[in-house]
């Protein structure tokens, strides 16, 4: 049987799935998917049809940063530009 990972296991692992990111950050799946497709959330993927894996700490930090900028009134393209400049 494959059980859902506990929060303890998720918080101890280096990589997480998009579903686990949603659980960690209380962010909508569609939002995370959109950010990923816009290149705002880097991920690793072994093969095309395999699960995308995100670096937990960096990605959670980035999501909360994006959320903060959004709450300050910044648009997604502006945040994207800011991310590009910083990286």
């Amino acid at each position, binding site marked *: 049987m*494959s059980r859902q990972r506990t929060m303890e296991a998720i918080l101890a692992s280096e990589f997480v799935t998009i579903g686990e990111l949603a*659980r960690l950050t*209380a962010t*909508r*799946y569609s939002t995370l998917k959109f950010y990923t497709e816009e290149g705002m959330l880097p991920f690793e993927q072994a093969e095309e049809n395999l699960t995308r894996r995100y670096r937990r700490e960096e990605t959670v930090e980035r999501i909360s940063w994006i959320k903060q900028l959004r709450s300050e009134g910044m648009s997604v393209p502006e945040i994207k530009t800011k991310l590009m400049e910083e990286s």
Partner: protein
Amino acid sequence: MAEFTDFSLAQRFSMIALNAQRSNMMTTVKKISLRAMAAAVILEVYLDGGLTGAKGKIQPATRTGENTPNGEAAYREMILDGVRLKARGRQHDLFWWLKHASSLSKRKLARFELVMAKTLSDLGALEEIPNLLGCDMYYESAGLSIKEYRCPIDEYTRMTEGFRAEILEEGQVSDDAICLLWLLRESGCLPDLFSRNELDLVAARMNELDPSNSLAHTLFPIQIYRGWEFAIKHVLRMKKTFIRTSVGTGMLFLFPLLDRTQAVFIETEAWFSNSKQRLEAVKERLEAQGHVFTVLKDGEIPTIKIDNLVYEAVPHFVTVRIPIQGVRLLPKRPI
């Protein structure tokens, strides 16, 4: 960093199934939810290895609720004791256990609801607030008190969005998600979480899982719902589908009495008030009744999130002795 709680399968499903349901009344929709919640308890015990047996026939192990960190013991024993009596010591397959757990009497289901609600409320995962219908002009002015359950918004988002991602994304699906998917299907809650287009993907996912996953293969053909209860719910859903248009107007405007729980009317004090003033009136009424209110989209027909559900606030008037201008809240699902 927020504190995280690992809720059990039955607790997670109950949080979804009870959310926005009336707490002090046994409605048909809630009865269907409770039946599925009882089945969720059986699945939870099954996944935790608490049902033992051979050749597909199982029975509960002697102790199923020991060392449960989140108070699962109380509701597990309650459901298992009820079904054990019917088993008379014999071993049965999973279908039998699910069917009998979901067919418990109305009285037992009501007791089970109290136990589950208390467990969740002790964990801070469920609260009782005034029902949205209580904000309706007629109910508010009559001083009626109707209560409903609400799952905390952050926790609800974590759980439902994590599940949605697991189902809609490529990759492995956990047994917990397979059970949750089946429970949501059996309780008719799937359209609460997935849009129409997504439901097609969910159906494809289920078809893909059925032959490749043994739990899905066992579980998906099982149906536990009771025909007449489901028929009632289905009719309500069909009606809701029928009234859905691009601006959220439809039959409910003409016959609001048909489904008042879904169409709350809030009167505004000023005649011909603009959309901002109308929204302000809605905000005041909702917040006075303890609801959490967020504007998702401004405009002539704003989209607003009330607790965990999304509504459209459509300008409307009712005629009593004089016409009363106001706002009709229409559900817009899924978020």
